[in-house]
């Protein structure tokens, strides 16, 4: 039985790659592609959960599931499968850790007043909260479209919906946010 790759221990060279194949037999280009996939999945999971540790656990879980019953290649089908799995795991995750505060991660001009970062972070926190409150499919479609910058075709593959259905979810998510955030997108509607 192949040894499970240990994604958490970066200091140990794994004996298998992320899909359970012996590392010695993994083509370097494929290894790079796998690593790229992992990075994209991590970023995606962080965009949903806003906590790196939760995101890392979910991505590792997704790779474990891929080992057990998922695709073995690195084609587009594998990509969709992994993103779908990460999405389902993220949406089903009972939140264990708090979302990271935004102040440290947002970009503000270098010469901005000290309180500008805090005010900006507050505005974005409001938006982040509004996105988290969206219905699951609207939230997923919106994140994949606006944050992950995926095409509607790829999103349709991931969510196993038709392209018009995905477009509808994105549309309703956007309009819902606009209505909720009111005249000032940083303020919530009652």
């Amino acid at each position, binding site marked *: 039985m192949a040894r499970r790759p240990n994604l958490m221990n*970066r*200091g*140990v060279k794994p004996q298998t790659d992320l899909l359970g194949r012996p590392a010695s037999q993994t083509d370097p280009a494929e290894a790079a592609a796998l690593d790229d996939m992992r*990075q994209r999945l*991590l*970023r995606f999971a*962080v*965009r949903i959960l*806003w906590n*790196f*540790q939760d*995101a*890392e656990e979910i991505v590792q879980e997704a790779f474990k599931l891929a080992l057990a019953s998922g695709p073995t290649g690195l084609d587009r089908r594998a990509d969709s499968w992994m993103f779908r799995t990460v999405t389902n795991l993220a949406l089903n995750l009972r939140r264990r850790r708090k979302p*990271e505060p*935004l102040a440290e*991660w*947002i*970009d503000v001009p270098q010469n901005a007043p000290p309180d500008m970062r805090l005010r900006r972070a507050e*505005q*974005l926190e409001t*938006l*982040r909260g509004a*996105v988290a409150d969206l219905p699951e499919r609207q939230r997923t479609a*919106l994140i994949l479209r*606006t*944050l*992950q*910058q995926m095409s509607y075709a790829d999103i349709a593959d991931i969510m196993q919906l038709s392209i018009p259905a995905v*477009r509808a979810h*994105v*549309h309703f998510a*956007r*309009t819902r*946010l*606009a209505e909720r*955030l*009111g*005249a000032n*997108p940083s303020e919530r509607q009652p």
Partner: protein
Amino acid sequence: MRPCDDIRAACNDWLDGTADPSIEADIDAHLAACEDCAQYFGRLRTIEDNLAILGRAADRLADAAGTPTPNKRLTWRPLIAVAAVLMFGFVALLRHQNRGLEDIHQLAENTGTADGDVGSDQGPGFHITVPDGRLALPIESDNPRIHIVWLYHETLPPGETAGESTGDAATQPG
């Protein structure tokens, strides 16, 4: 002019930048004339821009938190080396402390018993005397705490006990 509902229904393509040029022109014309729709589309645009900022923030968080760190597993070699150095130092210190006693023992073996005052040729202030059966030995030790140790080289009379004392060379035990 097209109705507001039609225009708002096309906001998705407008935001994505994929609207048909004719529809985009209709939207621009409508927004120029309808303040409500202009504000609504303005909100949509702001939200879209802020979502992009959130996306970049998430990437920074993921990249910063996911930066590979050096292997933090505990390695025993440096600990063993430090422990060895400490032990060596401790043993050396003990030997240094005990050197005075070794000198004493060696001197006792070499000197044996002596009667009378050997004299001051043993060093300034130090004498070898044998008062009451006890042997006073000079200490050639760097340890400032030990100057003279009285040793008993004979069987003591009943009631008397062996002992050590430090003191000035000129001091006779009482």
